């Protein structure tokens, strides 16, 4: 099955607008994706028909809301082939999921002199929680580097893993380089020293079929808003036994069993990790996003993005004066394409491109370590999703020509 973007784009009302008098070309999907009408309808339906607080209510609305909320949990588990729905915790976003693991598992199992292995291409959300843990515990952080062509240097990663390694946490797909990492291989390295293996799947689960058990990771984290779902929902997946062994993260309503004056006992997982009223409406709407993705098929999504990425890499390379950061082989990468233009800073590129209705991102992409590693202050990034079309790549290239006109003009003049 292939993706018919003509039909698909009908489902995304936001795409049918003009920006600065030009049709919107949305190429900032690594930051967040747009939502199909079906997801918006799910929100509307929830608030117009079923809204109630969950878990404790006996009345009809509470029963309906609870059943729909829990249905998303089961659906998420099967979407990534997690071992058990009881191992699915809804957080605000990927960042919170990673913090949860660092706070609970980390504080229990990481001690002075222990090692946490990351990579230089991690998003800040997969760095800072571990830094804070390392500071609390006197542990140390090690970063695997990348190869000159932008892949993960797996030999370097292997050399960092020692018997003192307690946590290995890596991104499954880089939000800057696009690089897909060999997660199963890393899983074995982590397992061989008994380290917890965490995968930041924020950029993989939305774009390809991910089977958590096949990957062999202990923890998988991702965000609904990057996969057609609403903002405000993150997912933490782990085996329920792992979660059961952890101390609580946030305290409050819903996560307790018995509260006494001096101490309390905890509810069963996953509720133990969902303190207070959850983001019920958005969790329920996530189910509609998963519906949408499953109907298309994640393999078709992957194939579509691979083709589009190949086309984009091609056009950028033949444009000239552009450095592409990350692998050029589309089998080793996802659809986030970062580049630098000789004549202009990424922010200037982004401003001019925006003037053409083309939304891309410029900056450090929450990956300052990688920027330093690449020796660039920032990059320009275009990132694709299932509704993007080759003509949108063309629109980007046209806009880049305008960047060259504005900035090239200046250099021509200054040469006079």
């Amino acid at each position, binding site marked *: 099955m292939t993706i018919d973007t003509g039909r698909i784009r009908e489902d995304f009302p936001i795409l049918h607008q003009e920006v*600065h008098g030009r049709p919107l070309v949305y190429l900032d999907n690594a930051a967040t994706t747009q939502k199909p009408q079906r997801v918006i309808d799910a929100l509307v339906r929830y608030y117009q028909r079923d809204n109630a607080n969950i878990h404790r209510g006996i009345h009809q609305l509470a029963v309906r809301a609870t059943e729909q909320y829990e249905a998303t949990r089961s659906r998420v588990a099967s979407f990534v082939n997690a071992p058990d729905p009881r191992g699915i915790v809804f957080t605000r976003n990927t960042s919170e999921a990673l913090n949860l693991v660092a706070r609970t598992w980390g504080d229990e199992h990481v001690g002075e002199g222990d090692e946490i292995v990351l990579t230089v291409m991690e998003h800040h959300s997969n760095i800072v929680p571990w830094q804070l843990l390392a500071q609390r515990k006197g542990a140390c952080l090690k970063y695997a580097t990348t190869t000159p062509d932008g892949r993960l240097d797996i030999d370097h990663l292997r050399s960092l893993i020692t018997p003192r390694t307690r946590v290995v946490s890596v991104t499954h797909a880089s939000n800057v380089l696009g690089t897909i990492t060999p997660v199963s291989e890393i899983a074995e390295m982590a397992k061989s020293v008994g380290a917890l293996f965490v995968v930041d799947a924020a950029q993989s689960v939305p774009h390809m079929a991910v089977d958590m058990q096949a990957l062999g990771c202990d923890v998988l984290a991702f965000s609904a808003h990057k996969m057609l779902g609403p903002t405000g929902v993150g997912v933490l997946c782990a085996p329920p036994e792992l979660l059961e062994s952890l101390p609580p993260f946030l305290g409050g309503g819903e996560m307790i069993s018995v509260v006494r004056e001096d101490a309390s006992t905890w509810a069963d997982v996953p509720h133990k990790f969902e303190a207070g009223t959850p983001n019920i409406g958005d969790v329920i709407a996530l189910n509609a996003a998963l519906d949408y993705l499953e109907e298309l098929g994640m393999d078709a999504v992957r194939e579509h993005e691979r083709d589009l990425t190949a086309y984009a890499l091609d056009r950028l390379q033949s444009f000239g004066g552009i450095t592409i950061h990350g692998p050029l082989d589309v089998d080793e990468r996802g659809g986030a394409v970062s580049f630098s233009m000789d004549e202009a800073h*990424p*922010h*200037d590129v982004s401003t001019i491109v925006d003037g053409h209705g083309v939304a891309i991102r410029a900056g450090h992409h929450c990956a300052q370590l990688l*920027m330093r590693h690449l020796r660039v*202050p920032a990059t320009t990034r275009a990132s694709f999703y299932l509704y993007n079309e080759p003509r949108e790549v063309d629109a980007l290239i046209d806009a880049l020509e*305008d960047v060259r006109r*504005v900035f090239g003009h*200046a250099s021509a003049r*200054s040469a006079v």
Partner: protein
Amino acid sequence: MPVPEVQFDELYRELILDHYRNPRHRGTLDDATHHAEGLNPTCGDEVYIDLVLDDETVQQMAFEGQGCSISQASTSMLSDMITGKRVSEARDITKKFEDMLVAGQEPDPEIGDLEAFQGVAKFHARIKCATLAAKVLEDALESPVSAQRGG
């Protein structure tokens, strides 16, 4: 290729691009009496300013930094503007420059060439690029080097 509705020439005035390509006063000052640095965390622009203040006058200014055309050109142009001015005048210019950008006020004649940045006020995501130099300069005017070394 159709011409876009947005008038980039308003933003990227020739004078700005010229200062971006050929920054004035770039470097450091060994005998700096005042120093400050600033970072725009949302975009990564960096500006470092050295000053020699004497007799309540800005004798010299030099800067280093990296970032977009707006952040670097504005620092360059500010350095041109305030060199030789009294500290109180330098503060005044800086303040009026910010008023134009943030409050959207008509440029005061006192800010001279800096009025080239008036177009930035319409590009909300870029205002911070232009105010970075002003903020670091204000900071530098208050930050004697000796106090920093002592502290």
